[in-house]
């Protein structure tokens, strides 16, 4: 497992922040052309010292989202490389994004509007959703297949499902599932229209699935529900309820990692779906903020981390996305 969050550049920093139980400090972002509209965000702190991998030729000019994804990927695969060695491993990566490379996209479009004849050719390739995937794959070297999924936060579990298919088909020996986001003024500005209480956060999370149980950190993927999309025939509350029903009843010693924030309106569907849950529960968004796909990854990773450390025998992860679908997953202590 690997993570970059407003708490810092590894899983331990994120775990410690969760254990403290206090929402992380909030920063303000200036909004171009409208000084009175302060935008609240939780940014990733600058790493000190600067990690060596950022000197890789692919990462020198890339967007922060690629840096976060790369850091999370390296942390998640560190143990794997130590035990298996690079040569023997065929790695897959699935990178999941909701808003993607917004910093370079805004910079490039700003230049386009000013004078398209002088817009920088360095920025444009970094606006592509697949750019972080490509950078991380190059950094890890032994990647044989890669995919970038776009969607709301529930797509992270779709990424886990895709990875499990590649593993089952013996296409890869291990597969990273990365959820990553960066931010600038436009994301909190847009989110104000949809959820005024949400505080946008940036970062990434990476989970490494492998077939070989001896390489496991002590956690096993037990179940992934169907993807219950929100359509005119199926409301968000109904999708959340159906997902929850597929994960079964609460048993003693189990954890629920939910996606609740601080807004009764947007949290309502998930809250009702899990209203019968009597076990332990963590709500990472309340500590770290609305990290969209990164937040989904943090949820999954914190659930796995708690099981790996022996705090719980199993954990359920609930992802009721903003506008696409509801998915859940269940992890158990490894044999």
């Amino acid at each position: 497992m690997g993570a970059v969050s407003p708490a810092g550049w590894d899983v331990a920093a994120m775990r410690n922040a969760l254990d403290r139980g206090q929402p992380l400090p909030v920063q303000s972002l200036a909004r171009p052309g409208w000084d009175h509209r302060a935008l609240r965000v939780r940014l990733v702190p600058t790493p000190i010292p600067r990690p060596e991998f950022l000197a890789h030729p692919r990462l020198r000019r890339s967007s922060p989202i690629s840096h976060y994804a790369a850091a999370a990927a390296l942390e998640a695969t560190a143990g794997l490389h130590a035990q298996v060695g690079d040569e023997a491993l065929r790695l897959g990566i699935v990178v999941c994004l909701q808003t993607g490379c917004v910093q370079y996209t805004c910079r490039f479009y700003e230049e386009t509007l000013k004078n398209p004849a002088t817009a920088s050719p360095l920025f444009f390739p970094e606006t592509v959703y697949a750019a972080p995937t490509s950078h991380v794959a190059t950094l890890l070297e032994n990647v044989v297949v890669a995919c970038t999924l776009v969607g709301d936060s529930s797509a992270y579990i779709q990424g886990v499902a895709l990875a499990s298919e590649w593993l089952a088909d013996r296409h890869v020996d291990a597969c990273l599932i990365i959820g990553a986001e960066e931010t600038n003024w436009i994301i909190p500005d847009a989110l104000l229209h949809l959820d005024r209480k949400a505080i946008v956060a940036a970062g990434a999370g990476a989970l490494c699935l492998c077939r070989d149980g001896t390489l496991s950190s002590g956690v096993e993927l037990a179940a992934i529900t169907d993807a219950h999309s929100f359509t005119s025939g199926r409301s968000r509350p109904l999708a959340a309820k159906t997902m929850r029903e597929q994960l079964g009843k609460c048993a003693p010693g189990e954890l629920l990692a939910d996606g609740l924030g601080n807004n009764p309106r947007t949290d309502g569907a998930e809250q009702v779906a899990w209203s019968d849950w009597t076990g332990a529960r963590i709500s990472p968004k309340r500590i770290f903020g609305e990290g969209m796909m990164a937040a989904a990854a943090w949820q999954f990773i914190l659930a796995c981390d708690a099981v790996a450390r022996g705090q719980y025998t199993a954990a359920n992860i609930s992802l009721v996305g903003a506008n696409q679908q509801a998915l859940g997953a269940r992890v158990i202590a490894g044999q």
Partner: protein
Amino acid sequence: MLFPPSHFPSQPLRVVITGAGLITALGRGWKPNAEGFRVGRRAFRPVSLFDVSHQRVKVAAEVDLPELGSEVFPAGRLGRRQLDRLDRAGKMLLLAAQESWRQSGWQSSEPDADQLPLVLGTTSGGMLLGEAYYRQAVQQPSRQRQQATRAVQYQSQLQGRMVLDALGCSGPITVISNACASGANAIGHAWNMVRAGRAERVIAGGYDALCQLVFCGFDSLQALSPTACRPFDAQRDGLALGEGAGIVNLETLDCARRRGAEILGELIGYSTSIDLHHLTQPQPNGNTTVTVMQQACAKAGVTPEEIDYLNAHGTGTVLNDSSEAAAISTWAGRHAATLPVSSTKAGIGHLLGGAGAVEAVVCLMALREQWVPPQTHFETPDPACKFPVVTQPHDAPLTTVLSNSFGFGGVNATLILRRWA
């Protein structure tokens, strides 16, 4: 449950195509497109969608979009407000999906219509709405009108939801964004789902609309041709952009036979890989491309000698075409000398996330109607091409065809289709 899988078929299931829909600058639907591709018609014209007066290049393959109303979609499925929220990309996607749905004969009343997977490939989704959001936010910061709608609707999963609503069904939505391989990857992912028994039927395809950011992006890279898009020509000087959507309805052979459906073709092979050479440039000798074509052939159970036509990625850029030419020559060996190859991007431009899907439908047309799509404006073959580039319209007995798609970031995808006779 997506995991663990409930059952594995003892043998991979055969996957057939029973519906296909497309919209390109050549027209809307099978007939005008088949007529255009068959003769190698070119559909470029001056860009009218945004200001290109300061760009090096001023042409693209724009689609003529009809007004969407109840004559296109069953009354009551989508309201006027929903249709008004769609941008060009969403409208093209809906039109292609509707055509494919009708052709397949699938019904929203069928029992699995509430769990019908939709797999889409796109590079920019509703970017036109994103651009509008940005412009208003910067130029009129305190004006909020329509911004909430744009913030939601620019997301590609919302366009997917609209498709399911329009067709009267529900199901998991997967959006793949592997740059210009996205459409082929979406169809390939759907093929994997059906073949492995994870779904009996899947709707899949790709789409993208022209937008200022992407047009300017390719122009800034000097990747757009200031003359004419001529894939594999020694004098080629860049690609041309287009827009459109291609959708196919895939199902198991058993399902299609049970329904008595008309089968348009069979999807028999797919593979994907990643080229780590560079973010925007392919490996010069095309090694990864060779691998992906070999893997797709292995899955299809065919040899290069059995491929009757190859629809190349063929963007018209110097680097892409030389790499792909080297790869095709290596992969095909002696068969290259007689393997007809063409790039339909010469006629409709590069559709980015829609390219792989539209080109799969073009392959399906060629298989159904037994012709090879030519690329006109081709004068001098690049010496790297050990294969004949199709330059003249002609009929040909086609049984098996291969389609390549490659993207920024290095994801490659190959699809192999077989004639259903």
